[in-house]
């Protein structure tokens, strides 16, 4: 699936170019920076931002009420002590993974097609990790003491419980956020300098100038820049695998049927990348339409990401299969009942929706015709995003609500506050995302210039 090979062999160039022909260094810079600097009012942007911001205000309300009353306002209890908060945490962290994969691993593998989507994907990663990080903190009984999770010299003379995967989570997610943020910001510096140089108003010059940190584009700057990017990519690469592995340990380390499975780490990582690419598609498809970026984010990109969905989706489907198979093969009554309870229990709708959305519907992506249809890919991606949320619901809630002792079984139902927090977090994500597309270049300008030069030489 080498992009170059396909490019030369495929006659339908329309669907195979990393960037449409006819662009020069200047037109690329103009096109991307004009989105940030342009004076044109965009009703669509404003409308979208308003909706997202209202959702964010709903989150603020739900969280304030939570802080006043406590986690009792949620539907959680015993035995289902983990529900929406943890489901959404895992969902958001997973979504973040595509950004790191695109920016780090694909950079190291010299995949050119990453160029036009890496900035957006990295931004998506950071915003998703912020949403994710919020949930476990809200789920704490006393969220204002969240810093107890860190090993700092405290007056209690106690360290956090290092044997607990929940503490590993703190390290995994905070490292992930730090590295992603650095990677994103370092990548932005040359572009911020471009914007600074093109800005007309003094205010914009100063703000983008400070953010550009004195970038002049000298050869020394570029040399150091390349080194820093490679180093950060090297640092970020293990994180693609490690973060969701640690998240999966939250479950796999426990002895609960449905959680206590060795397949969890790879299965979670695949699921994370799956949902991440689905989210990238959900964002990139409307973006390219709204801002006329079809020449930069081409059908080739959508096609290749659809193929990635198919690949990671297959790993995830294999995971579902193995869970069911191991339940049968282990001959453990509790494991067997757990699987039966998924398929046939009170939450079977969630399980079957998961299988249909996540396993059956994506099979359509085998067809080239489907992969050529923007609408079809978009709808697939939406389904996958929903299904990945359901997957975590199935794993967490169905496993918890009926464990070893039937006398302790209890149904779980989310309260209105659960829903408000979930949709509020979507609002937080999109508020940040709308601000990002308005105030920062959403496609890496300098990398696109590079691409223009390279493709011109070919």
């Amino acid at each position: 699936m080498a992009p170059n090979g396909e490019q030369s062999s495929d006659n339908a160039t329309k669907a195979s170019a990393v960037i449409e022909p006819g662009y020069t260094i200047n037109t690329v810079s103009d096109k991307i920076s004009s989105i940030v600097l342009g004076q044109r009012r965009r009703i669509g942007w404003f409308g979208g931002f308003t909706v997202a911001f209202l959702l964010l205000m709903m989150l603020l309300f739900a969280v304030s009420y939570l802080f006043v009353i406590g986690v009792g306002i949620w539907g959680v209890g015993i035995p289902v002590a983990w529900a929406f908060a943890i489901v959404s945490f895992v969902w958001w962290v997973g979504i973040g993974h595509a950004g790191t994969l695109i920016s780090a691993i694909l950079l190291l593998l010299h995949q050119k097609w990453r160029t036009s989507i890496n900035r957006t994907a990295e931004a998506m990663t950071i915003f998703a990790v912020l949403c994710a990080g919020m949930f476990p903190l809200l789920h704490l009984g006393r969220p204002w003491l969240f810093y107890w999770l860190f090993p700092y010299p405290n007056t209690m003379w106690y360290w956090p419980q290092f044997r607990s995967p929940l503490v590993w989570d703190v390290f995994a997610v905070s490292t992930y956020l730090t590295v992603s943020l650095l990677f994103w910001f370092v990548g932005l510096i040359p572009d911020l300098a471009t914007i600074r140089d093109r800005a007309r108003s003094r205010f914009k010059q100063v703000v983008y100038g400070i953010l550009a940190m004195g970038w002049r584009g000298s050869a020394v700057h570029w040399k150091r820049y390349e080194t820093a990017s490679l180093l950060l990519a090297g640092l970020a690469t293990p994180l693609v695998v490690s973060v969701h592995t640690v998240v999966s340990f939250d479950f796999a380390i426990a002895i609960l049927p449905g959680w206590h499975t060795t397949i969890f780490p790879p299965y979670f990582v695949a699921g994370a990348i799956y949902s991440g690419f689905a989210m990238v598609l959900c964002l990139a498809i409307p973006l390219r339409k709204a801002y006329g970026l079809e020449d930069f984010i081409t059908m080739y990109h959508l096609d290749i990401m659809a193929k990635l969905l198919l690949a990671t989706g297959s790993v995830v489907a294999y995971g579902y299969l193995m869970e069911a198979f191991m339940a049968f093969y282990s001959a453990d009554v509790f494991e067997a009942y757990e699987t039966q309870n998924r398929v046939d229990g009170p939450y079977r709708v969630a399980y079957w929706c998961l299988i249909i959305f996540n396993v059956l519907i994506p099979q359509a992506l085998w067809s080239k015709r489907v992969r050529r249809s923007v609408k079809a890919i978009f709808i697939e991606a939406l389904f996958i995003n929903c299904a990945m949320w359901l997957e975590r619901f199935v794993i967490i809630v169905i496993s918890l609500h009926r464990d070893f002792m039937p006398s302790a079984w209890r149904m779980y139902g989310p309260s209105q506050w659960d829903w408000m927090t979930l949709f509020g977090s979507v609002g937080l994500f999109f508020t940040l995302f709308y601000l990002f597309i308005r105030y920062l270049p959403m496609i890496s300008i300098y990398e696109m210039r590079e691409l223009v030069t390279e493709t011109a030489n070919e």
Partner: protein
Amino acid sequence: MAQVFHHSTNLISRLTVYGAFVAILAAGFVPWLIDRSPYNTEQNVPREQPIPFSHRHHANELGIDCRYCHTSVEQSAFAGLPPTETCMTCHSQIWKTSPMLEPVRASFRDDRSIEWTRVNALPEFVYFDHSIHISKGIGCTTCHGPIGEMTITWAATQMKMGWCLDCHRQPEKYVRPKDQVFSISYQPPPNQLELGRRLVKEYKIYSLQDCVTCHR
């Protein structure tokens, strides 16, 4: 094109970049200091009382045993605050007209307790029992400090959890012979660790560090 920034910006940007590290460290360190300071813990701050009771006078100069007033310290969790009657055993005979002691006499007359200001307070989520500490050879002054020098009583320690754990992790650092528990002038010998290890074995002191030991 004109320069956006004055050239002094070079210095300012360096200062802010390096200054950020200092600021982050300070942002952690200052709360760390405040948390431990007497301002927060009230350690070593004499507490004002309705009657200026002097431990120095009663326990040191007069040599009254701790248990004369704190009667339940050997049997119960709470050391016990003396009822006014305990004061009156002596003060019905001596200093009986002293204006300073009028609140004591008033309390006795009206049958109303004196409202002392608590000096050593533990949070309510902590279970603490005086009797076990006394019976395992932990002296009064180990926790309550040089009580024989306090004209107005103060808390000698900050009573943070780390302070409890210091002893619970290494009781040999503080344990003393049982006959010295109520001594207010006891000083640990130079070979405290050696003596401590012997006493820990002899008194069967277990280093209890489970959460539920104190948080029940």
